[in-house]
């Protein structure tokens, strides 16, 4: 399930061609990391050989967790995110008797990076959970009415548990892909409410997929030195940057979220650049998603 993308040789070669900077002594990368990164950015490339607008290799593995109703593992370079969705039954919310629940939570366990401590989720994990919840709500990727089984009596609760296994920056993008892929993978059993007993009857043999109507995809950028925008920052780049922006867009080019929690101010032109990159990113990810889904069906 967890394999490394084999692309290192190509990247390495490119770095070697662009500059001899890769041979920078270790003290430069650890003592003056900002200077180290600046040298690369001056040449319009990054320490790992990417261009400024280039994402890391994205790999997707869908449905590997059989105990979940839907699951996906996403790798964005080193960053690894796993999402598992489990459906449970509950009474619908009192204020919306014809709807179900979607409960996303992001966990950044101490397993994924030394920056996180054990215990309840910190600010970053909580903000990420809220971000995912907002994207689900804003994009309307799934009609919450679809999750209702019997109005006012019974509906589905989708617990979307997202865990970071390896934190190397840009978890939001990876989380959204993992969520979307596992949502597409979810199969819920058929449920009826028995009219006489009022109890639920579950038919595990008959299962159906969710109707995912929109495909929101995120593109994150880091701002370097108050001016340079780089896409898909690694953890090192995140630490050195002065601002972040995440643009979530669906396939109809509607913006679902423009998430910029402070940091360096950006001009309208820069914002438009981000949106344009997010549009192409959406196409890239949807293509990958379709390819993986197709290869799964072929099996």
């Amino acid at each position, binding site marked *: *399930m*967890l394999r*490394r993308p084999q692309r290192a040789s190509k990247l390495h070669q490119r770095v070697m061609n662009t500059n001899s900077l890769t041979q920078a002594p270790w003290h430069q990368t650890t003592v003056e990391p900002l200077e180290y990164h600046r040298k690369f950015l001056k040449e319009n490339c990054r320490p790992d050989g990417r261009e400024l607008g280039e994402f890391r290799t994205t790999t997707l593995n869908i449905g*590997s*967790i*059989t*105990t*979940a109703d839907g*699951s996906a593992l996403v790798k964005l370079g*080193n960053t*690894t995110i*796993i999402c*598992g*969705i*489990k*459906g*449970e*039954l*509950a*009474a619908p*919310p009192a204020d919306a008797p014809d709807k179900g*629940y979607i*409960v*996303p*939570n992001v*966990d950044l*366990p*101490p*397993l*994924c*990076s*030394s920056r996180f401590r*054990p215990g*309840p*989720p910190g600010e970053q994990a*909580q903000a990420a*959970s*809220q971000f995912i*919840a907002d994207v689900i709500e804003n994009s309307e990727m799934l009609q919450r009415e679809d999750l209702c089984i019997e109005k006012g009596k019974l509906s589905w*609760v989708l*617990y979307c*548990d997202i*865990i970071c*296994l*390896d*934190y*190397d920056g840009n978890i939001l993008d990876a989380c959204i892909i993992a969520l979307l892929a596992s949502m597409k993978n979810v199969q*819920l*059993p058929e*449920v009826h409410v028995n009219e006489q007993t009022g*109890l*639920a*009857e*579950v038919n*595990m043999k008959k299962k159906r997929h969710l109707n995912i109507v929109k495909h929101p995809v995120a593109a994150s950028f880091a701002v370097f030195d108050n001016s340079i925008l780089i896409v898909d920052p690694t*953890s090192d780049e995140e630490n050195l940057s002065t601002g972040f922006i995440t643009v979530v867009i669906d396939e109809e080019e509607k913006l679902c979220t423009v998430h910029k929690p402070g940091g360096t101010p950006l001009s309208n032109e820069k914002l438009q650049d981000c949106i344009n990159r997010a549009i192409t990113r959406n196409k890239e990810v949807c293509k990958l998603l379709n390819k993986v889904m197709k290869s799964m069906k072929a099996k």
Partner: protein
Amino acid sequence: MPVDTKRLRGPEESQSPWLFVEQEQQSPPDEREDGRRKGQVDVRPIFARCGLVSQAKGSAYIESGKTKVICSVYGPRETERKDETDMKFGRLVCTFRFAPFSCAKRCGWIQSTQEKDLSMALLGSLHPGLCLHRYPRSQIDVSVLVLENDGSALAHAVTCASLALADAGIEMYDLVLGCSLRQEGSDYLLDPTFAEETQEPATESTENRGGMMVALLPSLNQVSGLLCSGDLEQQPLVEAVAACIEGCQRIYSVAQRCLLTAVKKKNPPPDG
């Protein structure tokens, strides 16, 4: 119960759909579902890899049947708790977690007592294998996450954690390998699946029924951890321990090969 304000909450109460499925009562079959035989040292094939978590000092991932376990090791680093009186030895801290979606029934985010017990068992099993006196005043963190639990989670967690510790370059006396077993009357099931671990017994009697987990230092041939539950007589107990030790030895070669690959990858041979 205090409310968890640090996570998004769903409805107050929700039930797994499995509760509403009519469970057919059936006696356990004579053969094991995956074709393995009862009473034989028959472990599921293991897939193991080291060094998948880029941020960790060392890490390992194990897949055995459908059971999937990932572990990463951080440290040795400065201990957080300075009140410890004995600073001559390093401190080993183990965290064992189930991912919420890893079991048939969803488990919550807050660490349960079962997870705490398993963390302690993991710590106990790993501790004798480590040269902690080499790391005074420091702390080594081992965190294990079970991504999918299809039985024998603790045994695989022990193996996975010791691989991760070795990958991190922590000095050890030996690897620690884990193997578990389920005793059903006169038969035993080695490396049981989740269904075998939890299945209803065929007979009412509670005699000779239980679970066991053995952690072994394979080249020293010493047992570093033994966890036993249920009701076992002396003879089956001794046989069960022997079977578990045999089971551990079976996975030793896989573990060795996994470490060898990881070392070769980190330090490629000079001629490329």
